[in-house]
């Protein structure tokens, strides 16, 4: 590890022949120049949480505007900018990269590797993501984009939105997309080649399975959006007419290319969260994962089917019925592996001995909330029903139950679970549980009533509505809930900042974890492991604890209670 060179052969007198010792870098420069997967992972987590706060503030401004009918707080131009910034930030700058952050930090540790396969490419991925975010947010200083995170052509074409904001959006998609693509290839190479001795495919942690499948989906889906935004860019500035009917182009082409990326993107955003709680639930139920193989297979099945459902976002477009039927059936099919996952999580809790710590609260909330998004998803898959509900607040509620109730609760579970490993200190349980309950109440208050607003005819993306429409009650409740949700998130932010200095010391394995990251110190040293144990099951740490117990029992020692 250290830079001391061995004494050169043939010299008899001990002589110092070392020419240069690389000083370990400290301070902010060490973060800027690092290629350590753990530091990169932490930078991802910090940066994405800042974007999460920004996106949240944008959401709260929209909720304030909609709290009462005929509100004049923000003008329509600003409102369109807010909805575009909110959606884009949450998808491209929070959820996808925060999962890359967890993957970066944890995948090498979980598979017993010292770093990612390509550490420098790993740093490149992170900085591409940061620059994508900066380019996008720089548009605040001239004219932010206003065509929604989907930027449907021809509205996003230069004939209707000349604003450079759309161009900033295009560059964001390019830069973050390239970052994700490079990162995904890195994950695939790492997971295929660098697993510890004994860790066959059947002994790989489910979180690593989820990141592997997330990576394959990114590699398949990202080229489509990269092509689409390039075509939009040339349509806007170089006279092409890919999406412009007056020049022989086709607006539906944009929608196909966008959703060919956009729907896999939904699974890209949820599968790693599934992986996170598949690590957490068994640990706190003190049981093995129920149906491990079915869980891994279901991830793969969801990913495969997830590539075949994109046009269910286009049920109201002029499209032949037979096409609609195909996409209805493929969307139905995806409910089966998703159902398997939910049942297996519940079966993992069944007959367990459940330890109620904060990570468990967030992890158990995921299936409880996601199932609501799943059921509304089946309703929306029936295309005649979608004709009624498409582009209403029912869809807004559906997607937030999936992405907030699902992914964000999963991310918070992961934060509470792995923070001790990353920082060496525990988060406060009291603040954690308080944060959970405030978020849980605020979330449901915000989004449950949005189903009703949609059912009674409120379209999404409108900056105001008349009193006569009768949507004020729903919207007011939703706004109150959204601020409660914001407070819940802030409690966790306070918890994290406070615990960095004042948290109880965690030790190597505070939760009695199952996977290899708990084998090393908290926080792990730069080389991760001095020795990598032989992996003999899907729960190597459980084996190691058993071994320790056996050997200490043989010596008649009662040094450490293990179970």
């Amino acid at each position, binding site marked *: 590890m250290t830079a001391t060179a061995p004494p050169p052969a043939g010299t008899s007198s001990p002589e110092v022949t070392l020419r240069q010792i690389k000083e370990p870098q400290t301070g902010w420069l060490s973060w800027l120049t690092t290629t350590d997967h753990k530091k990169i992972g932490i930078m991802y987590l910090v940066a994405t949480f800042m974007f999460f706060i920004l996106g949240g503030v944008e959401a709260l401004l929209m909720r304030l505007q909609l709290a009462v009918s005929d509100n004049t707080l923000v003008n329509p131009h600003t409102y369109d900018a807010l909805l575009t910034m909110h959606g884009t930030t949450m998808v491209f700058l929070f959820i996808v990269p925060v999962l890359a952050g967890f993957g970066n930090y944890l995948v090498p540790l979980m598979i017993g590797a010292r770093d990612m396969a390509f550490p420098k490419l790993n740093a490149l991925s992170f900085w591409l993501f940061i620059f994508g975010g900066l380019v996008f947010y720089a548009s605040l200083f001239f004219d932010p984009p206003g065509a929604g995170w989907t930027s449907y052509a021809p509205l996003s074409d230069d004939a209707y939105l000349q604003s450079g904001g759309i161009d900033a959006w295009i560059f964001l998609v390019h830069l973050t997309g390239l970052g994700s693509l490079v990162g995904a290839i890195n994950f695939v190479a790492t997971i295929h080649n660098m697993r510890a001795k004994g860790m066959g495919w059947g002994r790989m942690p489910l979180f690593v399975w989820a990141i592997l499948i997330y990576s394959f989906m990114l590699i398949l889906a990202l080229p489509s959006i990269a092509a689409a935004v390039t075509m939009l860019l040339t349509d806007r500035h170089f006279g092409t007419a890919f999406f412009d009917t007056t020049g022989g182009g086709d607006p*539906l082409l944009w929608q196909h290319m966008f959703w060919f990326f956009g729907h896999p993107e939904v699974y890209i955003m949820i599968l790693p969260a599934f992986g996170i709680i598949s690590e957490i639930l068994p640990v706190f139920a003190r049981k093995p994962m129920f149906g491990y193989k079915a869980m891994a297979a279901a991830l793969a099945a969801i990913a495969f089917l997830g590539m075949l459902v994109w046009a269910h976002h286009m049920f109201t477009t002029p499209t032949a019925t037979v096409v609609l039927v195909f996409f209805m059936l493929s969307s139905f099919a995806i409910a089966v592996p998703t159902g398997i996952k939910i049942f297996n999580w519940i079966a993992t809790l*069944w007959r367990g001995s459940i330890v109620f710590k904060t990570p468990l609260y967030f992890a158990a909330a995921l299936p409880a909330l996601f199932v609501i998004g799943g059921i509304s998803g089946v309703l929306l898959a029936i295309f*005649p029903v979608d004709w009624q509900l498409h582009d209403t607040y029912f869809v807004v509620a559906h997607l937030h139950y999936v992405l907030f109730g699902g992914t964000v609760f999963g991310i918070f579970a992961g934060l509470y679970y792995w923070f001790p490993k990353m920082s060496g200190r525990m988060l406060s349980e009291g603040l954690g549980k308080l944060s959970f309950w405030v978020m849980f109440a605020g979330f449901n208050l915000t989004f449950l009533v949005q189903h009703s607003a949609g059912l009674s*005819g409120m379209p999404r993306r409108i900056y105001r509505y008349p009193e006569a429409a009768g949507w004020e009650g729903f919207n007011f409740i939703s706004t109150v809930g959204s601020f409660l949700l914001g407070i819940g998130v802030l409690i966790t932010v306070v918890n994290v900042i406070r615990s960095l200095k004042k948290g109880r010391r965690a030790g190597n394995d505070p939760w009695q974890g199952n996977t290899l990251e708990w084998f090393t110190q908290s926080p792990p040293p730069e080389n991760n492991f001095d020795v990598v144990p032989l992996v003999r099951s899907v729960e190597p740490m459980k084996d190691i604890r058993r071994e320790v117990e056996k050997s200490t029992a043989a010596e008649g020692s009662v040094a450490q209670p293990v179970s």
Partner: protein
Amino acid sequence: MPPALRSSRTTLALTGALLLLLVAAPAAFGGIFTFDEQGSQNGKDISFLYNITLIIGLVIFLVVEGAIIYCLVKYRARRGGPDAEQIRGNTPLEIGWTVGAAVILVGLTVLTFLYLGDITDPPASSANGYQAAEGVQFATRDQPKPPGNGALEIDVNGQQYMWRFDYPGSLKGEAERLYSFYEMVVPTNTTVTLNITASDVIHSWWIPTLGGKADATPGYTNETWFKIEKPGIYKGQCAELCGENHADMLARVRAVPPDEFRAWAAKQGADIKAAQVGLGLQRLQGVGSE
């Protein structure tokens, strides 16, 4: 710590009660869990499909939430309690719920197909409806032509930020040329087929109480239909983000008895003609005075 334990048990019980309330509520608050009352048969069929699926969904919801809450309460780790059972799986059970989920979805598919025809295919107009001109060529691509005669065809055009309605050749001599903006006037008991397009960006035609929405896409013609029994005003608005004033792109359908429709068409047609004549005169005078 018993107080914390008790308080989280109370919260669990409260959550349970809340979920129960959610199930009991549809009867008490119609229009919150279901669609508003529909004014056209396709809307009623869509509403029925939604209700059936919602009920199946609520049962699944209760089973899942019930199981989660039961496990969390029953299997909480207790001092001196039983150890966790090291169960790694149960193949018959796993196959069971996989097949079970698939069977439910096959059931939903069959149900959807049973109702699909009634939703997509326009029916014939009723005998007491407006009798439109015979032998009209319907510009249909995917949606079949309504059986018999007497259906009224309207071209809907979305433009930033208003709706234009043109009544092409199917009128029976009430007016030479007929169009309107914002308000579409239609006869009751008459099948009205809509050819929907847009002339700038994508819009979406939607009257929530008259069946589903259909995107108005430049370069394409989308189709839908409705047949209204009760006279009245049916309000809606554009449902696809189309620019800054998207929220103000309103539309309404006014359904009136056939006689009243005839009178309206004649007057509106005459007004349009008068306006055109007036415009022509203005232009002539303008040329003369130059």
